[in-house]
């Protein structure tokens, strides 16, 4: 038992270490000026994707439910954070404001996670997937027609157009429907991104090894058995779902503060985005946090590395995705891997390294 605990701790430390070492290496590259502008621009989105992949892995891997609407929570976080930052611009010092924006984004996303989770988590399997997809699309759709303005009398909301806000003189429209929020302060930096990645990791890894986390995993493995030993299914499912949603909200705040204009396009908050995050999770290994980080980084960089091939890059990306899935998951390939594994070649008997965190 004690050895097992040490193993988990060691595994977790490797994951933290990996992130920190990656950060140091990238910083060296940045300081020596050998990183292209394109790559530097990718650093914050990379952190965003890593946080999203980690948080979705909590739903898919730990809770065992398939969610196709994760981008919706990111969207909520992004708009909440950007809205807050814009409203309080100039009244609160920069650092504190960004910190509060992140907290607020996480909180609002968590509230939506609970609101959506209460009805949705009653469903199972593919039905749950399609309903989360539907929620994601609804959120994106509503964001596209939402107008919010501020004047001396307070906030005004409308789902029609700018005129129907009835703003007083000197009022300011903050969210402009399909044009979104523009002029959000650019607070996101790579360092903040990495700190948020580490905090996300810390929350998820600790949750997984806590009493609550084990209850969640028990529900995943056998819902009926878990229920029969007195685990409150709804409570733990909701908790995991809400934590996952709030972390996605954090990623959204980070994402929003890296852009001059935040709009809810199908590209960034649609189901395509949710699916892309799911691809990170599945390719990295369901339930394996370190795998999610690696997959998110590799798959984000892959299209950029292939940029020289122009038109062919997304095609190659698709082929790589299919081939990797076939190689990783097909029963035949697994058999082949078992026969030709390196560990067997070097005569190591234990396969303890499997699974891990």
């Amino acid at each position, binding site marked *: 038992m004690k050895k097992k605990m040490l193993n988990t701790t060691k595994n977790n430390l490797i994951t933290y270490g990996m992130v920190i070492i990656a950060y140091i290496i990238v910083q060296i590259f940045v300081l020596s000026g050998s990183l292209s502008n394109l790559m530097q621009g990718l650093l914050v989105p990379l952190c965003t994707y890593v946080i999203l992949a980690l948080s979705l892995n909590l739903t*898919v891997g730990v809770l065992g439910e*398939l969610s196709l609407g994760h981008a919706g929570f990111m969207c909520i976080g992004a708009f909440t954070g950007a809205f807050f930052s814009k409203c309080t611009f100039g009244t609160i010092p920069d650092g504190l404001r960004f910190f509060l924006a992140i907290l607020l984004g996480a909180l609002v996303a968590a509230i939506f996670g609970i609101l959506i989770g209460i*009805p*949705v988590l*009653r*469903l*199972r399997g*593919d*039905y749950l*997937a*399609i*309903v989360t*997809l*539907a*929620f994601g*699309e*609804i959120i994106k*759709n*509503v964001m*596209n*027609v939402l107008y919010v303005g501020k004047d001396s009398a307070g906030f005004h909301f409308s*789902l*029609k157009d700018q005129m129907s806000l009835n703003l007083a003189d000197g009022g300011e429209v903050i969210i402009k429907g*399909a044009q979104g929020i523009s002029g959000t302060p650019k607070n996101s930096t790579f360092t903040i991104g990495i700190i948020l990645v580490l905090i996300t990791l810390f929350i998820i890894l600790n949750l997984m090894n806590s009493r609550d986390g084990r209850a969640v995993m028990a529900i995943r493995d056998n819902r*009926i058995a878990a229920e029969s030993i007195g685990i409150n299914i709804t409570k733990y499912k909701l908790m995991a779902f809400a934590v996952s949603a709030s972390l996605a909200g954090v990623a959204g705040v980070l994402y929003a503060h890296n852009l001059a204009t935040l709009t809810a396009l199908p590209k960034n908050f649609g*189901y395509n985005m949710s*699916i892309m995050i*799911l*691809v990170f999770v*599945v*390719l990295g290994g*369901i339930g394996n946090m370190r795998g999610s980080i690696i997959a998110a980084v590799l798959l984000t960089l892959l299209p950029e590395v292939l940029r020289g091939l122009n*038109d*062919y890059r*997304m*095609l190659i*990306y*698709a*082929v790589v*995705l*299919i081939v990797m*899935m*076939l190689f*990783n*998951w*097909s*029963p*035949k*390939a697994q058999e082949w891997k078992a026969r030709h594994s390196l560990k067997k070649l070097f005569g190591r008997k234990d396969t303890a390294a499997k699974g891990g965190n």
Partner: protein
Amino acid sequence: MSFLSYLINGISLGSVYAIIALGYTMVYGIAKMLNFAHGDVIMIGSFVVFITTSATGMNPLLAVLLSVVVCTILGMVIERLAYKPLRGASPLAVLITAIGVSYFLQNIALLLFGANPKSFTSVVKIPALNLAGGKLIISGETIVTIVTCIVIMIVLTMFMKTKPGQAMLAVSEDKGAAQLMGVNVNKTISLTFAIGSGLAAIAGVLLCSAYPSLTPYTGSMPGIKAFVAAVFGGIGSIPGALLGGVILGVIEILSKAYISSQLSDAIVFGVLIIVLLVKPTGILGKKINEKV
């Protein structure tokens, strides 16, 4: 009168969704997988018709037939290369592979045909129907779409009574038992993909005849909505696909007309959520009792 014409338009759009949903529902029933690439097969089918009619001036009917053949083969090839090796693997892995196939088809189309929207010339040459002294006009496309949908439903219901149809039912009930009874499971699954993809080609042509803008991404949103329709009606059920598709189409057109064109998708998805909360397996879905 305008309400009636919106309603007819809704039924027409819903018929297209229903035909696409059939492909989803049959494949789901048999292979227990969400074939995310189904929407992109629609797009490929439409491009085949577009290229053959505009470049070679082929007879539209012949072009549609060719497109059905191409999509049928495409569906079988996709199944053979991408999904068959994963039989028995985790459903999530199959889902992601299907997403990969979807990206693949979109990008192949992007390379071959470019990103600019092509204006699709309608293959329907039937004049519009004038009713109630010109107040209610039903376009030729609408008539053809609704009639096609009804014909497909009748043919498919009859097909399910034949031997291959019964084999399909058997495989969807219990793969192992079907195999023991001498059903060729691999062939049956392949046949299901073939039928679903052939139907997708027809749906694509009907969709593009009514909404004549064709891009490599044309298929993805109708694909998702048709999937929603399949879930709505109860996935795995053929009458459910028809019912779900038509209801979805009517809701979409009516909410576009009377509430807000931008919010119509949100309303469609909202109704889906409410239905699933009340009836968690869809309108006509079977309730499966859980065994401990």
